[in-house]
């Protein structure tokens, strides 16, 4: 299935049925582009390396053109483009224009190539990219090697482990890595607050079995808490964890644990 029907991008307003041969972007890859490239330096390095260009002698015109094509392609897809990409675009165009200008001998004497700063940054970044790669390739405790810690028979005086928020975040990170929960579980602070109140309501119902609707609310704690408590009750009802009953209009509303059915 290599057929491309709709225009894949608009370059300078012109619809583009096919991507230019030297600008290979897999058709469905634009969405992940911002993930694939870690910023403008990364994208530039890719463009330079793909053409086996020498970093130390970058041809500014083709590089700038290709960079802008990528940026334009991303913009045409309405991808949220990080400001860093646009700053780099401006920088590339500035370098290009400075190189086009004839330079008076006095200025040339300073000998500073307008590309020098860009080249320095690219080289430094590439060096760190490679370093990151090599670090990742080292055998890592927990991932590639396991530290041995055998059971100590007759452990004296049990002490309870400490747990802090980092441990908890680390545990969730491990879960994410395995189960790939990332895509589906956006738990916001508001949701968390609702879940906290769900537990609170269940706890109270355990003590009292049945409570009148109003008894679950504490007006003294302010409007936000009232709203969250109501949301928690609705969520509990939706998950069929509680029964909310009213025998007739305007009669008291009762809330009880779902399994504690009256007989």
């Amino acid at each position, binding site marked *: 299935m290599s057929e491309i029907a709709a225009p894949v991008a608009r370059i300078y307003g012109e619809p583009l049925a096919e991507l230019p041969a030297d600008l290979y972007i897999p058709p469905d890859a634009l969405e992940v582009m911002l*993930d694939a490239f870690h910023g403008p330096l990364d994208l530039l390095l890719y463009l330079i390396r793909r053409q086996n260009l020498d970093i130390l002698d970058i041809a500014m015109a083709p590089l700038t053109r290709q960079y802008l094509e990528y940026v334009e392609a991303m913009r045409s897809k309405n991808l949220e483009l990080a400001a860093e990409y646009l700053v780099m675009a401006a920088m590339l165009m500035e370098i290009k224009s400075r190189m086009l200008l004839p330079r008076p001998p006095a200025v040339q004497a300073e000998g500073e190539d307008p590309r020098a700063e860009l080249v320095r940054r690219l080289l430094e970044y590439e060096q760190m990219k490679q370093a990151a790669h090599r670090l990742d390739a080292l055998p890592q405790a927990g991932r590639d090697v*396991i530290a*041995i*810690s*055998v*059971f*100590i*028979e*007759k452990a*004296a005086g049990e*002490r*309870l*482990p*400490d*747990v*802090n*928020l980092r*441990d*908890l*975040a*680390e*545990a*969730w*990170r*491990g*879960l*994410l*890595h*395995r*189960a*790939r*929960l*990332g895509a589906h*579980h*956006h*738990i*916001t*602070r508001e949701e*968390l*607050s609702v*879940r*906290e109140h*769900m*537990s609170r309501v*269940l*706890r109270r*119902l*355990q003590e009292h079995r049945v409570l009148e609707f109003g008894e679950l609310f504490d007006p003294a704690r302010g409007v936000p808490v009232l709203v969250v408590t109501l949301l928690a009750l609705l969520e509990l009802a939706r*998950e*069929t*964890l509680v029964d909310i009953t009213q025998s007739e209009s305007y009669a008291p509303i009762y809330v009880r*644990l*779902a*399994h504690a059915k009256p007989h």
Partner: protein
Amino acid sequence: MPSPTEAKRILEAALLAASEPLPLTELKRLFDDDPGPDTLRRLLEELRDDWRDRAVELVSLASGWRFQTRPEFEPFIERLRTDRPPRYSRAVMETLAIIAYRQPVTRGDIENLRGVGVSASIIQALEGRGWIDVVGHRDTPGRPALYATTRTFLDDLGLRSLEELPPLDEIAKTVALEAPSAPAPDAQDARPGNA
């Protein structure tokens, strides 16, 4: 099946690295071809003999095999046990994280999220600590208990409310987007036409 020497080497590494006793049903998974319980047991007994004169021994318990220090060497080891705080296993921490973020949840919910069983001892450890308790039962077959975190949990972690827990989407951003390694060594990734 590798040679007996190689098989023992693998068994030794797996048992030394394990944090809990390993039963035969687990240990056989170390090998492509199941050696069968008799061969496995014989190899383990040989391994136990190999360790006979060491300060660490291989023992067979109700829940499986494990390496442990010999009781008579405990006084030496005790000299090194300074005040390093003990730590909960990853299984306990993950269970706690799930209960904290997704409460109220059943043990089944936790197992679904972790992709592995949650042993009773994990729940007991957290209940014993007073960090979780049962706040109800889901109205489904078996009426499974619903767990939630307690006030003590918040207090011990220095939180005023669950909203002060680290936000999950921030944590998600730091994990590499790669397919998790397949559980079976030779799992085919030829699932037709689904993402």
